[in-house]
């Protein structure tokens, strides 16, 4: 046997011949070593070998023999954090925390010290999808971003994530960070064809592979239609999907599941499957797919598509658009398009399912909506929901990608067939790119008119959305696309038609910004063009036309809406961005005539929460020691919502946030929650927590009044005690008193979302573009957000920073390239999410607003900041070059040919 020294412990073990060090360490239950890509690109698996940092996914395990291996678990000594861990703690240099182990192991290494003067270079090999890298830089510069946790002052304080130490020492358990006796492994065969009918699957060779336990195809699984999308109301998504189907409609669709004793055997089984296909004609372009003779994606036996491949058409008109255009002095018309991008949450999808000693089915998963997953699993498997337990522990990023049930069903089905043995399905990065979901590609034609003074008179939009092979989130994202970006402006005459169309592309899905991002790009570019035609300043034309209290908040429909101004801060946001851009930040344009400089801005509006149903519950109890326990169904995937929920509860009952323990996202242990998506973590789940904490306070005060005989209105909570008149009773004592009379100090409340408040974001960009190479350098990035009172300012800024960074990625670096439906670049080295070097520093500002609808004055903050980024860049590019670039992304090879002429 070979000897390995890991974090000072000696192991005698023999790695498999082709095993990499990453999985070898994880086999030793050293789970701090993460997998973001398994290909050397993301750095989440960084460990030290004899003190030098390596990406352990690329190191043959046998090379670790007789060497000293250090992982994140081995960095702290005697329980004292390493200075870099402490710096990451103080700066809160993570959100989901999945990249943190690799970031820390990289930046704490001796070799890093000679590179750290140049962080863009030094951090080439560490990707973070959540933070936008600002807090990472803060940590490396020794900056603290946290405040003290003071009883009664939790709300509004920048408190650290309660799981910080666990995350930074590798102890926090993400979905796959668990060893179970008898674990089986599941792998799927994915379709090599964009459109085909399976005529035969020969599993003989596959089942003969040693270690294979089972092979499942469409013939084995329940033939029940469903949608992978998670929503409270499942009827908003079309039931057009089978767990496994005999027709494949996109390259990457799963065809068969192979379950084996090892991942290697499962992979071998997948390779040994023989599938015969009848290749069907395929269509990838949604406009072509709308033609009458286009290949049909779904036939009427399965899903009724009355209009061919058009899954859904939304249209409407308010006022009289034709008349409005007649009144216009200037009319702009152009077609804009946005690209297909992927969430790239650093933790891939993955689920483990098994039968527990309670004879129920347990699913450990990485999801934004465990309760909705449970409902769908119950439907698919034909068992009562109470027999299924779905839960998350720590989730490594979501961004909408985990508002989808794509990894839970097959492991659960397999364990049900296999007597309850644990079955694990861990996705690869390639699985994410070819088999998960993407932002919907949309093309938007905008026609917009205004009078000389800039007053809008008419708006006419035409949207085509490509939902790919399945319609999950198709109509909802189209609805969002047709909604707030146009409702943001007062205009008496608005009209729109939107189609969402099936094609043989990878399915679209929910993605931060949710359809509104795509049409915000079009609308905000069009506003600048219109301003240019009229010779009006771009900020001024927005100031003139943006909706304000008293206006109808309406896009192209006049139906009553429950959106309402609980606060209003767009005026402040416009002012801030305008002032900051004018003031400048001292960063000069690079020298030389080849660099053109320009400034641009854009706004975005968000209705805080989905227009469809959404609900959350919370429960709270006083514990015998006088502290509290809070249970809330909401998922934490790096959005910081558990921190915020603790703060909301703590502020109501007047304690420190740390005195409120929390459990979340567990169908057995928390009340129901639709899911953490659509900007609901604060305004719905947070509202449930708020109501629950108020009920807790009332319950304690009521009991204390009875117990002490002091009037209820003379009783008040004071940290760990209740003050009744002039008597101070410790909560622990009160709890004991309650126990004697069977008073349990346990409360629960539910929240529903209506009305929905309105939030705004404004992005300003000053950039330089090189006329020859097409390189873009962001010189100044300013963002102002109207998010109400921040529950945790640091976290809110983190969400904004992360969303803005994602916006830069969408605009400048990311692009899923497909050839006949096959993704050309399904690796992180070829699909570039922003690295440190790509991510400009953004000056963030918060409007001073206090919302009357959201809990404790707060509004949604994590989603909408992405929306104005791409159009602000486009507007800056237009200002710099005189050229309107209307199609994302703005990579230099797509720009250069239009740049060569000097102005």
């Amino acid at each position, binding site marked *: 046997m070979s000897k390995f020294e890991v974090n000072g412990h000696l192991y005698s073990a023999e790695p498999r011949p082709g095993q990499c060090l990453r999985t070898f360490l994880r086999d030793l239950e050293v789970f701090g070593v993460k997998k973001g890509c398994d290909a050397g690109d993301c750095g989440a698996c960084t460990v030290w070998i004899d003190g030098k940092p390596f990406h352990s996914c690329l190191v043959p395990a046998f090379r670790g023999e007789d060497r000293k291996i250090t992982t994140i678990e081995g960095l702290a000594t005697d329980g004292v954090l390493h200075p870099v861990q402490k710096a990451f703690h103080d700066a809160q240099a993570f959100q989901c925390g999945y990249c943190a182990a690799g970031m820390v192991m990289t930046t704490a290494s001796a070799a890093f010290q000679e590179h750290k003067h140049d962080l863009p270079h030094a951090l080439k090999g560490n990707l973070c999808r959540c933070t936008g890298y600002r807090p990472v830089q803060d940590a490396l510069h020794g900056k603290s971003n946290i405040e003290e946790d003071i009883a009664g002052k939790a709300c509004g304080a920048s408190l650290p994530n309660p799981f910080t130490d666990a995350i930074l020492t590798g102890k926090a358990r993400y979905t796959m960070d668990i060893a179970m006796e008898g674990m089986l492994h599941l792998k799927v065969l994915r379709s090599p064809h964009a459109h085909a009918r399976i005529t035969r699957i020969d599993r003989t060779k596959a089942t003969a592979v040693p270690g294979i336990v089972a092979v499942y195809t469409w013939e084995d699984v329940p033939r029940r239609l469903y949608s992978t999308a998670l929503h409270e109301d499942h009827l908003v998504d079309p039931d057009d999907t089978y767990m496994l189907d005999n027709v494949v409609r996109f390259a990457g669709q799963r065809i068969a599941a192979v379950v084996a004793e090892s991942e290697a055997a499962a992979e071998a089984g997948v390779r040994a499957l023989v599938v015969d296909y009848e290749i069907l004609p395929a269509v990838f372009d949604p406009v072509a797919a709308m033609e009458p003779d286009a290949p049909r994606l779904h036939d009427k036996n399965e899903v009724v598509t009355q209009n061919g491949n058009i899954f859904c058409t939304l249209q409407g008109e308010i006022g009289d658009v034709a008349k409005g255009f007649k009144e216009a002095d200037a009319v702009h018309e152009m077609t804009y398009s946005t690209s297909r991008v992927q969430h790239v949450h650093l933790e891939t999808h993955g689920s483990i399912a098994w039968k527990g000693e309670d004879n129920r089915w347990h699913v450990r998963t990485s999801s934004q909506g465990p309760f909705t997953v449970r409902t769908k699993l119950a439907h698919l498997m034909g068992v009562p929901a109470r027999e299924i337990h779905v839960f998350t522990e720590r989730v490594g990023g979501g961004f909408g990608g985990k508002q989808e049930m794509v990894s839970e069903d097959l492991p659960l089905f397999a364990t049900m067939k296999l007597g309850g043995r644990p079955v694990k399905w861990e996705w690869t990065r390639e699985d994410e790119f070819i088999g998960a979901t993407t932002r919907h590609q949309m093309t938007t034609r905008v026609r917009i008119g205004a009078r000389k003074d800039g007053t809008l008179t008419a708006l006419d939009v035409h949207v085509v959305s490509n939902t790919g092979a399945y319609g999950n989130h198709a109509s909802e994202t189209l609805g969002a696309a047709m909604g707030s970006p146009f409702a943001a402006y007062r205009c008496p005459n608005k009209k729109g038609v939107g189609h969402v169309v099936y094609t043989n592309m990878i399915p679209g899905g929910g993605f931060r910004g949710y359809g509104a991002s795509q049409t915000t790009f079009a609308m905000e570019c069009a506003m600048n063009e219109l301003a240019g035609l009229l010779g009006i300043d771009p900020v001024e034309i927005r100031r003139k036309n943006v909706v304000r209290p008293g206006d109808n908040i309406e896009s192209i429909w006049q139906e009553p809406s429950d959106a309402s101004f609980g606060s209003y801060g767009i005026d402040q946001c416009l002012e801030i961005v305008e002032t900051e851009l004018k003031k400048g930040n001292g960063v000069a344009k690079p020298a030389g005539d080849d660099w053109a400089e320009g400034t641009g801005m854009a706004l975005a509006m968000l209705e805080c929460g989905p227009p469809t149903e959404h609900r959350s519950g919370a429960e709270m109890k006083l514990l015998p020691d006088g502290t509290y326990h809070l249970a809330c169904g909401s998922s934490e995937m790096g959005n910081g919502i558990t921190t915020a929920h603790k703060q909301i509860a703590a502020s109501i009952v007047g304690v420190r946030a740390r005195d409120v323990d929390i459990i979340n996202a567990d169908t057995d242990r928390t009340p129901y929650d639709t899911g953490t998506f659509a900007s609901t973590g604060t305004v719905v789940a947070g509202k449930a927590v708020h109501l629950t904490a108020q009920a807790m306070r009332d319950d304690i005060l009521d009991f204390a009044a009875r117990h002490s005989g002091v009037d209820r209105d003379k009783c008040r909570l004071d940290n760990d005690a209740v003050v009744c008149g002039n008597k101070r009773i410790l909560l622990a004592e009160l709890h004991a008193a309650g126990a004697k009379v069977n008073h349990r100090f346990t409360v629960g409340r539910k929240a529903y979302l209506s009305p929905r408040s309105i939030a705004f974001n404004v992005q300003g960009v000053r950039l330089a573009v090189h006329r020859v190479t097409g390189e873009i350098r962001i010189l100044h990035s300013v963002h102002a957000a109207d998010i109400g009172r921040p529950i945790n300012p640091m976290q809110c800024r983190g969400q904004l920073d992360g969303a803005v960074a994602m916006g830069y990625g969408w605009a400048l670096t990311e692009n899923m*390239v497909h050839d006949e439906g096959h993704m*050309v670049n399904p690796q992180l080295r070829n699909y570039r999410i922003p690295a440190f070097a790509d991510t400009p520093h953004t000056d963030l500002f918060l409007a001073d607003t206090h919302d009357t609808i959201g809990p404790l004055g707060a509004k949604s903050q994590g989603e909408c900041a992405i929306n104005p980024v791409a159009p602000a860049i486009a507007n800056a590019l237009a200002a710099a070059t005189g050229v309107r670039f209307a199609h994302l992304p703005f990579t230099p090879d797509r720009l250069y040919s239009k740049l060569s002429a000097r102005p």
Partner: protein
Amino acid sequence: MNLNTIEEVKRPTSADQIGQWRDDYAWLAGGTWLFSEPQAATRTLIDLDGLGWAPLTATAEGLEIAATCRVVDLHDFKGPAEWRAVPLFRACIDAFLMSFKIWNAATVGGNIVMSLPAGAMISLTSALEGVCTLWPHPNQSNGGAPREVPVVDFVTGNHRNVLRPGELLRSIHLPASALSKRHAMRQVSLTHLGRSAALIVGTVGQDGTDFLLTITASTPRPVQLRFAAMPSADELRRAIDERLPPAAYFADVHGSAPYKRHITYYLAEQIRAELA
């Protein structure tokens, strides 16, 4: 990632221990590419680490770089003062998409035999007129004599080279004459510090003669243009056009072919102007 098809790792300490070569064998150097993708056709890895080759050997004739030389060793190399091109080592290493951590594992030879258009060690060693020494596999029929191939000819296309089955890149020799030349290097990428869309190096003798322009990344394989004397801007552009028609550029997600052609002209001219 795990290479689950691998059944055996051979760890020879001398070349004659390798035995019969088979199609499902692969040489393992740093492993940074091998372990980054599934290798479904490979069953056996032959680890070159145990051969114990000295990474770098500097002599009066030049620098011998073992194929197994870690990138970090090349990065840290300090040559004699008259080798004016040594700073180009770091410039090319910095052009890698990969981080300094990968330098600890990745090898110079591994990057060359990967033969990707953007292989920065191909750019470096071809620009410095490097010559590969290839060891035949002992069971080859040609008598087992090593052969020498200039790096610029070693790479024949995207992910293609002249290696025969079982043949092994032993080392790359950079002649002192090339190491002593003046140089200029330019690189462009679609993203900041991203994979090269073009990486172009020019070298010129101390006396201003023998201008050598090496175009990489924008073309599937390195392309060299040699001029006895420094060309004019027009001459350079014509020479590029003669060698590289529009279809000769390499299109991928790191840059369209027309873009790569466009920046090749631009960077080449900058290099010419700098060295003129």
